[in-house]
């Protein structure tokens, strides 16, 4: 039995959870809460919508404002989509200050109110409050004020990552900064992110602990490599991620041009969707790559497995990537990985080749080397597999528990 009010009981403020997740946040919340449950932690997990099923390892607390139109189908809106009321199209930060409260701002604020009300029954029971990314910070701040309990702010992704040109939403930037200032402890998903929090948000490095995400071992549902054969004989080089500026899709297309000069038989596959989709399609055609750079659209489950299995090389040229789970998933499926130096995942996958996202020349050389030197590629796959096997959620939960304890004890 957990002690009421002890740090073995945690109130997590969430925003998305599989199957209704738009990205890595939901996946990370799933892995972490399952591992915490294995570490005898009682988790209450709030969501701004009705989760479709009951979960065995924790209790979901739906926190829905009655005015939201789609509380049952998923998050009230996708926070990382291109349809945010505040986008980089609004370039003047001063203008942003002058704007009336956006719909997004209102929703996040309303979520804070609803969370404060809906969790009243469990508040005495919990020892710590654990908030995931900026959407949950106003709620966490309210709870802290109401209960005096310590708050851990978990940073999976920042506005500086998502909109790397510095023209992100000032509301989100401020919410992130205020949330981290208010928090007793901050968890960053990588040293890369920790440095960004220090450099860009001016956070005291001593307040930040790094907890890398884990990855679940391949289960029996995973598609075996033998069932992942297509485009036989051709080198297949894969990009998988949202088609946004952050993920560096344009560098992948540039890379294709250069590699194809040496390996005209190579096939480049771009898997994902996003607001740069049309632009990338045009760039592909404009660069005369129509028969060599193919777009698969958004892939899930079996098709995702299939593409990562089949890939001869996986490339993640992100401009700024707090973690980058998909690179681990590729490594787990025996695919040599090239990641940008601006990505946290290389900290747990040191065998992956890391390259500046803009250094297309070096990526080209690496790809040509991997394609021609099979021994090199095999060795890389072996090393990566070994590294992936030690990246567990168990380890992450262990660290998180220690952070709970520190926060609870006020250290």
């Amino acid at each position, binding site marked *: 039995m957990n002690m009421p009010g002890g740090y073995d009981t945690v109130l997590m403020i969430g925003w998305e959870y599989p199957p209704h997740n738009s990205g890595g946040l939901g996946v990370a919340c799933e892995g972490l809460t399952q591992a915490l449950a294995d570490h005898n932690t009682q988790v209450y997990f709030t969501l701004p919508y009705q989760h479709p099923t009951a979960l065995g390892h924790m209790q979901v607390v739906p926190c829905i404002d009655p005015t939201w139109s789609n509380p049952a189908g998923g998050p009230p809106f996708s926070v990382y989509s291109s349809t945010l009321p505040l986008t980089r199209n609004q370039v003047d930060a001063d203008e942003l200050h002058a704007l009336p409260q956006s719909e997004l701002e209102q929703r996040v604020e309303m979520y804070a109110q609803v969370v404060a009300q809906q969790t009243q029954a469990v508040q005495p029971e919990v020892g710590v409050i654990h908030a995931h990314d900026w959407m949950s910070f106003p709620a966490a701040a309210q709870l802290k004020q109401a209960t005096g309990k310590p708050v851990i702010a978990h940073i999976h992704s920042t506005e500086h990552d998502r909109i790397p040109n510095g023209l992100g939403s000032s509301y989100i930037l401020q919410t992130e900064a205020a949330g981290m200032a208010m928090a007793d402890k901050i968890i960053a998903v990588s040293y890369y992110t920790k440095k960004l929090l220090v450099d860009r948000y001016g956070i005291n490095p001593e307040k930040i602990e790094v907890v890398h995400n884990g990855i679940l071992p391949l289960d029996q549902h995973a598609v075996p490599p033998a069932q992942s*054969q*297509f*485009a*036989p*004989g*051709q080198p297949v080089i894969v990009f998988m991620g949202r088609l946004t500026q952050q993920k560096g899709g344009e560098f992948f297309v540039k890379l294709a041009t250069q590699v194809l000069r040496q390996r005209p*038989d190579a*096939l480049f*596959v771009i898997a994902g969707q996003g607001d740069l*989709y*049309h632009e990338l*399609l*045009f760039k*592909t*055609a*404009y660069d*005369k*790559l*129509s*028969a*060599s*750079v*193919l*777009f*698969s*659209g958004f892939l899930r489950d079996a*098709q995702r497995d*299939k*593409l990562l299995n089949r890939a001869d090389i996986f490339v993640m040229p992100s401009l700024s990537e707090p973690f980058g789970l998909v690179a681990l998933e590729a490594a787990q499926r025996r695919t040599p990985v090239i990641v940008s130096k601006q990505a946290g995942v290389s900290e747990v996958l040191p065998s992956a080749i890391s390259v500046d996202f803009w250094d297309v020349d070096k990526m080209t050389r690496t790809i040509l080397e991997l394609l021609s030197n099979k021994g090199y590629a095999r060795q890389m796959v072996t090393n990566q597999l070994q590294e992936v096997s030690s990246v567990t959620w168990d380890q992450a939960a262990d660290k998180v528990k220690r952070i709970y304890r520190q926060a609870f004890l006020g250290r």
Partner: protein
Amino acid sequence: MPQLCWYFQLHQPYRLRDLSIFDLGSEPSYFGQVERDANREVFQKVAQKSYIPMLSLLYRLTQAVPEFVFAISGSGVFLEQAAEFAPEVIAWLKKLTTTGQMEWLSETYHHSLASLYSPAEFQRQVAAHAQKLDELFQVRPTVFRNTELVYSNDVAQLVAELGYQGMLTEAVDRYLNGQPKTTVYQDVSGQLKLLLKHAQLSDDIAFRFSERSWQWYPLTVDRYLEWLEVYPESEVINLFMDFETFGEHQWESTGIFDFFEKLIRRFVERDWNSYKTPSQLFASAKLGSLPTYNVPQPISWADVDRDLTAWVDNAFQRDCLRLVYELEPAILASRDAQLINDWRRLQTSDHFYYMCTKWSADGDVHAYFSPYESPYEAYRRFSIVLADVKRRLSLVT
């Protein structure tokens, strides 16, 4: 009171099926599906709504109005699909051919833009089409119509070299310089006779007939006859349009069939009016004495500018066309009949039309005709097919 020259175009492309990257290398069919073939579905639907009712109406009119003559053209890919999906259409066409009142025109078998990219491939496709017409209908056309009425001085040269006496195209004001479109022209080299589409009177039927916001809606036969009869006996009004105008673009409920039937019957109630086929008009026109139609840049019958931008404009279209025609020598050298046939079906102009990203009024027309949700999807699928064609080619060479 004028001469009327009707020409109807029959065409259906082989649309691409929803190919995915995971199909690469599995010898996929690019066009048909065993389970649910969109091409079959479209063809049969249009056959019921348009081809069969209009062909039977045309037949009835040839019997009832002996003066009624007209021209028709059908792409090879249309005739192939008709034979497979709606053989009744072929039977009607045969029946109409025997009346002697329907003149067949030549075109490229694959309804392609080869005249702009590869003269040799153009000739092969024209020959293939001629052979198909000979097989099916035992006819040998002497008049040519190019895909989408694409025309230029260079295209005229190609067509003249193939021995045709004339061809059809669009009357484009910027090249007519105020000359009338209602007479027979010749090309700049003086080798080929030309008929120019009367866009306004054609499109009154083909596009505006059921448009409620049009000031002349609903169009009556009386009014249309008034417009025709403005022209003197010596002049020719070329009414060129998609066959599917009747029953598909304009549904039966708009009254299009009744309108057409009445028009055909009433027009020749006056002795001075007459119907002519292109070759009849050309027979009485003498090269050398005709006005010249000088078209240095290619034109077509599509969109407001009557140029090529419906097919050759954005990067999607340009790169796909480039790749298709760059592959030509290797494809032909492969001697792989299936590969060559697939490659030719990819040349059908509709694939590039679907990739068009022009907006405004033309965009509406494009969206109406496209089976894909967007030009981006049209390009995405086409590029997957191109990758597979390249892969197959690498295996045979």
